[in-house]
């Protein structure tokens, strides 16, 4: 599987994502945001960080980067696109995912481990998990408070687009474990077609024994599996 990790000016989790994909055996390369050629690419990662310093709004400027036109076309053609943290924000700004990410309810940057429940295991990003499994992964963001107007919210719930939700360590809903005030405790959603995933937590920081958990590895393994040609 060939993965392109996009680097925007200000991306700072591009290397972490790169290593996570390497770990699961993907053929991974970096793609500078001015490049636009995705012809040799099976999956795209929009990494976390502070593209353009998060000035104006997180993701608002990056979504106009030259590479984004190619990413939009790639996604529309069914190619898998994973956006983590700032990548999620960019996907929303670019209109590939509904809604937006507002400032955390606490109005502070929050960085610590959270627990998220896998709501669906039938996406290319969650095949390796069983639905209902609770993952421990870190967050690190100031703008992670998922918001959509009520119609949109109802629609994404109806269509089962919510893939990850913040829960307590046992998988139960508990507002005390919602780190940013996200509506319906949403931590990650997929597009209607299911090939674009945006999530605020950082699975790429939970893949090795030195990390506080290895629960994030499944996201990367799932992508590799989903793209393997059926024998």
């Amino acid at each position, binding site marked *: 599987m060939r993965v392109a990790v996009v680097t925007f*000016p*200000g991306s*700072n989790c591009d290397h972490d994502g790169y*290593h996570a994909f390497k770990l699961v055996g993907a053929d991974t390369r970096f793609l500078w945001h001015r490049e636009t050629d995705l012809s040799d690419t099976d999956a795209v990662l929009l990494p976390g960080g*502070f593209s353009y*310093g998060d*000035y104006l709004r997180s993701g608002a400027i990056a979504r106009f980067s030259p590479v984004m036109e190619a990413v939009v076309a790639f996604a529309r053609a069914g190619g898998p696109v994973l956006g983590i943290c700032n990548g999620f924000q960019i996907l929303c700004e670019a209109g590939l995912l509904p809604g937006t990410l507002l400032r955390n309810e606490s109005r502070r940057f929050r*960085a610590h481990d959270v627990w998220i429940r896998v709501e669906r295991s039938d996406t290319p990003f969650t095949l390796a998990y069983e639905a209902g499994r609770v993952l421990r992964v870190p967050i690190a963001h100031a703008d992670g408070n998922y918001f959509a107007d009520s119609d949109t919210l109802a629609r994404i719930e109806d269509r089962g687009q919510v893939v990850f939700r913040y829960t307590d360590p046992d998988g139960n809903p508990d507002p005390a474990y919602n780190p940013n005030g996200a509506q319906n405790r949403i931590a990650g959603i997929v597009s209607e077609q299911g090939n674009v995933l945006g999530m605020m937590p950082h699975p790429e920081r939970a893949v090795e024994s030195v*990390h506080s958990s290895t629960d994030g590895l499944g996201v990367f393994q799932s992508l590799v599996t989903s793209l393997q040609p059926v024998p």
Partner: protein
Amino acid sequence: MTSTLDAQPARHGTAAEPRPGDPEITPELVSEHGLSTDEYEQIVRTLGRTPTYAELGVFSAMWSEHCGYKNSKRLLRLLPTEAPWVIQGPGENAGVIDAGDGYALAFKIESHNHPSAVEPYQGAATGVGGILRDIFTMGARPIAVLDSLRFGDLDSGRVRYLFDGVVRGVGDYGNCVGIPNIGGEVHFDRGYEGNPIVNAMCLGLMKRDDLILGEASGVGNPLMAVGARTGRDGIHGATFASEELSEDSQHSRPQVQIGDPFTEKLLLEASLELIKSGHIVGIQDMGAAGITSSASEMAGRAGSGVEIDTAKVPVREPGMTPYEILLSESQERMLVVAKAGHEGHVEAILNKWELEAAVIGAVTDDGMFRVREGDRVVAEIPALPLTDGCPTYEREGIESDEVRALRERDLGHVLRDGDLSDALLDLLDSPNIGSKRWIYDQYDSTVRASTVAEPGGDAGIVRIRGTNRAIAATTDCNGRYTYLEPRVGAMIAVAEAARNLACVGASPVAITNNLNFGNPERPHIYFQLREAVLGMAEACGVFETPVTGGNVSLYNETDGAAIYPTPVIGMVGLIADVSHVTGSGFRAVGDAIVLFGECADELGGSEYLYRATGEVAGAPPRVDLLAERALQRLLLDLGRQGLLHSAHDCSEGGLAVALAESAIAGTEGRFGCDVSLDDELPGTALLFSETQGRVVVTVEPARLDLVLEAAGAHGVPAKRIGTVERAGHGLKIRSPRAEVSVSLEAAARQYFSAIPRRMEQNVSVDRAATSPPT
């Protein structure tokens, strides 16, 4: 007071003309520039004439304490700086040590105290920005940040406002650039009421061969300004940082510097790419005193000269004078010496990262720091006298009688026996002891996916990707001890740092330090400074942890009141195999709890004393450096053999707090403990003395004998004092004269709410309620 360095006459008469519109050089102007009459005369002798306005500004900045180390240079020579693993000692932008496997580690600490007192958010943010640049200009990629902070008591609204702003500033800057924060410290004490301390430390990793120094060598090589444009901000920041604060500081402050971490991130990537590209010979941050210090220091180190044309410097605003351009402290700028003919390549790399580069001058061979504005020479100063000729002072140091009396005070009135459960719960509610999670949850500590130990343990740890190796770091200093007895306090700071590293399994290898003191022109302060340096030197000598760099921040005084002398130690340690790392939290019910070291009645300078009586008094704990060294070696030995389930040192709050922390703060869930001690010490002394050289470890019962034997072999007193229990058992400690029994919930509630509950109020109100009227 004696002044060194006889004026060196100008080698050949230097020439510079005043610029139309420049103010006349008067005694008042000289004194406004923070220069004494003697110093001014030395300038005149150096130049062989009256300085121009620009030259006066240049001298004022370079001969400020901040750049010139006037009052500290001679003392700093007392510090040990060498060891086989030291690649670069003091004098460069950062120290560098060998990290094994072909890697080198650059690290340094820097203060931003004065700017943070005026504008906490930007002051702290730009402080982090500056220390990151010091690291990546060495060719190293920053891999971790730590922050060491001091504030007044949190009961004050102004203090809460400063604390909140500083933490947000440290966080926002590092988070945006993407450097994990792996630790630090914070202390609250009225001794820091008017003068917060904000020190930031950065560690960077490079391949040994990528090391590059800040030298302007190669006659004819172009000097290039890269990164952000030069604006009017922070003009004379270096001089400002070398003055006491007063009511006036709010008004007379220089334009504050605004940090732009986004530009910093680009500059970081561009600089590392430049260094690898082979197109440059030297690079340096334009930090304090801006272009002036970077250019003259680069010339000084290479023994060359430089010539700059201010008209070629990219500026943010029209109409800036050479004086302003030379002294601007605009952030996120670098000075690069390119190879002649490679300017275009340098520019291309900067442009790729959406930044600018401009040729602003060249390296010369005449030893001069020369500045033109187009055709007019506005400054011409011999470079060496400018950088190294700063007069240095050795002053008279006398201990204050008042402090001696405090130290000699008898503390019998705080000795108590019996049930001390409430006293422990009260200590856990102290913001000095309670969890610092409120702070470090605002810091990204896992970006780069290499963090092995986040803030919360005894030291932060990051691994070196692709190897089994890891690097640990900690910052430590207890200002109360240093206040009461500076030499002992400084030794303890070094010992505690080394002990913290040994607890996690890292061998201490070197330190950087930040000397935060009051006005050294006052004998009581100079005494503190000298004593602290002597204590640091002695401890570093015994532990073989040389000093590879640091920073001096003096004049931390408001209206005559100085901070506690605070020599912050930033220590790094190496871990050969990351699987040997030990945490500070209990791990399994039934484990034996073992105490290394011995208890004593030493409540002087303790948190218990401060909480119980509001006093900072008594003699600080004694420190036995050889015993500390034996303890470190024991811990490292046991860690390597994988014999320890946890290790945590006793510091603020003493043994009782160390036990409570291991019980409630561990990552593996919460545990209780059952401890019984046979010491006959008074209850409060046994539980809360901050006696040095003690570590609480837990081991599987089957391995207890091995551990006790090893301790014996290292000559470290060791005894089993109890057992790890289930959480429901609570914390139980018994001795002939004391008893503690608290539930885990109660202890955890106190510990985790100590800071958040004090910060619940809306802190912007605090600024409004307390800011000086405008």
